């Protein structure tokens, strides 16, 4: 039985103002796992929840469960820098992330949940004339494939973002930038809660604190999952457990994957008055840094992964130092700002920096993995196309090359051209 969820509307906000906020219902149920489902999605992150939502909404499927070993919003869903953009260049990625951005634009209405999507512009800085030429190439590709892009000169940047380091003697003087105005940020917790609430309303069972401990595989088929809350059998099983994909892959006895788990850190400072209106990306001479300001005023930023394989959800100090150095190089005015918190999430780094969304050697097992740095922005399209893959048992044209076999075919989808070393795909 689906829960009667109070709809968020101006009328209900007003009404509850008069009745002491007593008219709101629980956001989603806390069901006991059933022994049998048509579809079980392993992983209650943004991708798993979005997949469940679109399976129910786009394909009218019932009897779906999402099993999550922790709690909703406790993994990478709450451990990112909340940046949304679609400035990808390669075929497959280009259309996929553009579709995601389009879904983001209407997500709050679609879910009836304010995900605080703020299209505040995404600014990638460039520091030499030749780098700006390569930005122009990306700009052209984006414009030719139905997206938006602008090139901003240094003079325009100085006017729009006054606090960056425009000093003539800067180690890497700012030359210009590529701008995507429709890009921006969203509130990551709200996205997790919004998808969970909307999926639950369509009848999806969201089962938290439910960890898969073994996979009962018979030949080319998985019959059931053993969990710490009992055995669950399913006709179709979908993995959306980026960060821990290899662990489940080994549980199903499927061998090795073109994936390594690495940790990516993010940081937030004490709250400040409005300082930075856009998302700014600084990447030159080995630096990699991206920063925006949250609605609470904290500057949210991040940099590179920690450079060695790890499953520990805590970061190391050399990266804290690297990121701090980048912050001061780009915005010297941050010199005395205090860091409030920093955290780390485990990401699936793939061999070409692009994701996997495909069928597997097991007939009824589907894989969604390898999101590298790009998982947050991808969540809506990831759910959309993964639901399509599961429901129709074939990949859509857009994601047909995002399979595990692409390296064998020589079809790398390598945006940065870094080659087969997972840690280089930042």
């Amino acid at each position, binding site marked *: 039985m689906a829960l009667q969820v109070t709809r968020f509307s101006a009328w209900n906000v007003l009404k509850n103002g008069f009745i002491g906020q007593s008219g709101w219902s629980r956001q989603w149920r806390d069901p006991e796992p059933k022994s049998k489902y048509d579809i079980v999605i392993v992983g209650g992150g943004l991708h798993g929840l979005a997949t469940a939502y679109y399976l129910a909404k786009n394909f009218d499927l019932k009897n779906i469960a999402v099993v999550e070993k922790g709690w909703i919003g406790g993994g990478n869903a709450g451990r990112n820098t909340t940046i949304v953009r679609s400035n990808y260049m390669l075929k497959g990625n280009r259309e996929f992330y553009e579709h995601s951005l389009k879904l983001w634009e209407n997500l709050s209405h679609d879910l009836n949940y304010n995900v605080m999507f703020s299209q505040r512009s995404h600014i990638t800085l460039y520091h030499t004339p030749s780098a700006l030429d390569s930005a122009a190439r990306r700009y052209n590709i984006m414009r030719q494939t139905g997206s938006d892009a602008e090139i901003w000169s240094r003079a325009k940047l100085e006017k729009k973002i006054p606090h960056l380091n425009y000093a003539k003697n800067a180690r890497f003087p700012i030359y210009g930038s590529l701008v995507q105005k429709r890009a921006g940020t969203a509130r990551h917790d709200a996205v997790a809660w919004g998808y969970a609430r909307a999926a639950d309303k369509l009848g999806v069972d969201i089962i938290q604190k439910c960890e898969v401990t073994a996979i009962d595989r018979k030949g080319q088929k998985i019959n059931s999952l053993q969990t710490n809350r009992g055995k669950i059998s399913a006709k179709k099983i979908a993995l959306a457990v980026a960060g*821990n994909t*290899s*662990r489940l892959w080994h549980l199903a006895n499927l*061998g*090795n*994957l*073109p*994936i*390594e*788990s690495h940790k990516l850190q993010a940081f937030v400072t004490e709250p400040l008055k409005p300082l930075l209106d856009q998302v700014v990306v600084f990447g030159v001479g080995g630096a990699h840094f991206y920063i925006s300001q949250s609605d609470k005023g904290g500057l949210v930023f991040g940099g590179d992964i920690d*450079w*060695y*394989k*790890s*499953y*520990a959800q805590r970061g*190391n*100090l*050399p990266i804290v130092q690297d990121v701090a150095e980048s912050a001061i190089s780009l915005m010297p005015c941050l010199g005395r700002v205090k860091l409030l918190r920093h955290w780390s999430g485990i990401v699936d780094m793939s*061999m070409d920096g692009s994701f996997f969304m495909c069928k597997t050697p097991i007939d009824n097992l589907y894989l969604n993995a390898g999101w590298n740095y790009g998982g947050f922005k991808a969540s809506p399209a990831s759910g959309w196309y993964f639901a399509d893959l599961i429901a129709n048992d074939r990949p859509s044209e857009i994601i047909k090359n995002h399979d595990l076999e692409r*390296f*064998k075919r020589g079809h790398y989808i390598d945006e940065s051209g870094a080659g*087969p070393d*997972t*840690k280089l795909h930042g």
Partner: protein
Amino acid sequence: MIQIECPFCGKRDQSEFSYGRESQITFPALNADENSWYDAVFLRKNTYGRQIETWQHTHGCRSWLLVERDTVTHKIFSVKLAHTDWQKQIKKTT
């Protein structure tokens, strides 16, 4: 911070080293079939827990090391030189 006990230089911060890869990977002969090259270049065991991996002391003696480390807790169990003939020579001189 992780600290690695380099056999030549002593205990040093991880920032002096660079991570290589899982140590069980061996590259096949140049004329080996495509599948064995595919396995070596692209596939990873990605162990959750204790594994042996290679690190290079990039900002030190530049030796390649075999480090046994837990990928969840970061505890290091052993460090030795990756090149076995060097291991023998060190034993002779010490």
